[in-house]
């Protein structure tokens, strides 16, 4: 992607050199972006990266206009999609749907009016309503921590897990985690309870895990926000049996901890960065400017973050 950026920059320089020539008649791209409002850190990150994409891309391409709308719930998002289509007259759309089912029809309508549609993260129930799909990898989000924990524990030990909110996305992660642990009969998953991707709930659930289980080797916090609560609960109980705490998503605080090697219990994380909205907007805008199409499905891979590659995932300016 960087080489691509460089090429664009070179083209811009060349264009500036030939400033006397009239610009070639490329079609203007009016891109609409529809995302959920920043109600928690991850969505805060989504908002940050969407705005970052607008800033970077509009500066780079004269023929591109990006309009970002944030919605607090699914009906509001449906209304905004209508507005984007009829008032703003977009010809390309990047949408992060609140819910799959409720937004399938509204997105289909935008597409019916001729806009090119890229759906991010949550797939629609009817895939014919989208041209392209860009998403993070939830299976890897569960598989990678399980593999890491199993390896670090040498295939033997007690593990507890936290879960997010009961959704298909959370189930996919948990199933992937369990699937790996099946290969290690000596690793016991003691329990997995919901803590709602919330620091306070994670604190309480962990306190109770610590009361209930006298020997825990690893905690899969399954989210960097929840890991904050987990750490505080362990600190309070003064327990030193826990060797591994594994979060998820790659929040900047957690990545920094890994980068600096500050906590030996936190040696790794798995990426699920809100930056994929940036990639989705960039891919869509640049493909449309050239009149090209995106592949039907683009999975932004979730990868293991360790001390070696942590700096690639550290974005100090992002709220996430």
């Amino acid at each position, binding site marked *: 992607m960087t080489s691509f950026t460089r090429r664009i920059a070179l083209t811009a320089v060349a264009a500036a050199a030939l400033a006397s020539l009239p610009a070639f008649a490329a079609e203007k791209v009016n891109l609409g972006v529809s995302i959920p*409002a*920043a*109600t*928690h*850190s991850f*969505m*805060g*990150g989504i*908002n*940050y990266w969407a705005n970052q994409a607008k800033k970077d891309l509009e500066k780079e391409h004269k023929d591109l206009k990006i309009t970002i709308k944030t919605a607090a719930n699914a009906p509001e998002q449906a209304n905004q999609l209508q507005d984007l289509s009829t008032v703003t007259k977009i010809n390309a759309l990047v949408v992060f749907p609140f819910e799959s089912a409720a937004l399938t029809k509204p997105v289909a309508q935008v597409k019916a009016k001729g806009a090119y549609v890229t759906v991010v993260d949550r797939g629609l129930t009817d895939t014919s309503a989208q041209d392209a799909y860009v998403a993070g990898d939830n299976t890897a989000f569960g598989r990678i921590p399980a593999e890491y924990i199993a390896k670090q524990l040498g295939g033997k030990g007690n593990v507890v897990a936290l*879960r997010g909110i*009961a959704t298909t996305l959370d189930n996919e992660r948990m199933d992937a985690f369990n699937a790996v642990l099946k290969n290690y009969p000596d690793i016991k998953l003691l*329990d*997995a*309870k*919901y803590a*709602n*991707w*919330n*620091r*306070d709930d994670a*604190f*309480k*659930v962990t*306190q*109770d*895990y610590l*009361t*209930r289980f006298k020997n825990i080797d690893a905690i899969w916090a399954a989210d960097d*926000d929840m890991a*904050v*609560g987990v750490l*505080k609960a362990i600190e*309070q*109980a003064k327990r030193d049996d826990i060797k591994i705490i594994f979060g998820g998503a790659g929040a900047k*605080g957690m990545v920094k901890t890994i980068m600096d090697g500050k906590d030996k219990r936190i040696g790794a994380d798995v990426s699920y960065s809100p930056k994929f909205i940036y990639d989705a907007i960039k891919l869509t805008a640049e493909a449309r400017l050239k009149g090209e199409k995106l592949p039907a499905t683009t999975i932004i891979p979730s990868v293991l973050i360790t001390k070696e590659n942590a700096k690639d995932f550290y974005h100090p300016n*992002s*709220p*996430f």
Partner: protein
Amino acid sequence: MPPEPQTSTPQPEAAQHRGENKPRWTERLHGLGPVIGLVLLCIGGTLLNSDFATVDNAMNVLTRTAFIGIIAVGMCFVIISGGIDLSVGSMAALIAGSVIMFINWAGPASGSPLMAVVMGAVLAVVLGALFGLAHGLLITKGRIEPFIVTLGTLGIFRAYLTYFADGGALTLDNDLSDLYAPVYYASLAGIPVPVWVFVVVAIIGGVILNRTAYGRYVQAIGSNEQVARYAAVDVDRVKILTYVLLGVCVGIATLLYVPRLGSASPTTGLLWELEAIAAVIVGGTALKGGAGSITGTVVGAILLSVISNILNLTSIISVYLNAAVQGFVIIIVAFLQRGRR
């Protein structure tokens, strides 16, 4: 509802009279239902997991209850006076965020981290009182329904926190956080600080409600506002004060909350309002106002956190059903208490 005869005898003495012998009796009776529920739950919890009945676990549960419990004590006044406040969770979140930003700024600026933390704690209470005052004024002088006013501020407070936090989290700087931590994590005579504060707030609340003229006015307004007005009670002032009291309670709860995680995010304090209201009602206070008890509220708050504690300590039922268990217990306890009202 108060009996009709009262309306025809607009005597302040009558109200005072009732107020004087009422507390002891009703408080006992109202308190009994939740207490029975709590005792049964604790027996059940011990049978399911012997770790439940340890001192450490009891302290964990009481410490976590402290936030909701302290808020519920304030909420008790508001509900008894016939009002409601839906905004407490958002208010706590905004206060937490503001205090964190203030301490982060004041720490280096004033040169004395300790001073910054102390001033931050004071700021929490002051902000709470101010927000409460705003609610009270809008409700009494502005004559807007409390439900609407606080529904409005529920959105406003949380939106501002999200704005300040840029959608992410506000986090206390590390050394300041260490300095502040004892407020949540330290113990006095083996009992964590938040539990002490909870006890003190509850006792003060009980005294104000049952032993002062102000407490009786609150109950009188809740049972019949018109009669209270005839009885020369300054209804507006009393009502405004209930919201200020609640605001102060939220401030105190927040100043205990901030050192726990040292951070505030848009999910901080989510649904605390419902937990606080549930604690008050489970504790035997009538949602329509007029009568209620602080003891019951305290027991109600503890009961709610004991349920989730027991659920976390066992895995006999599917995690998908946790919320249902909570719902069943709340309804059963409310039923027990109804029989004795």
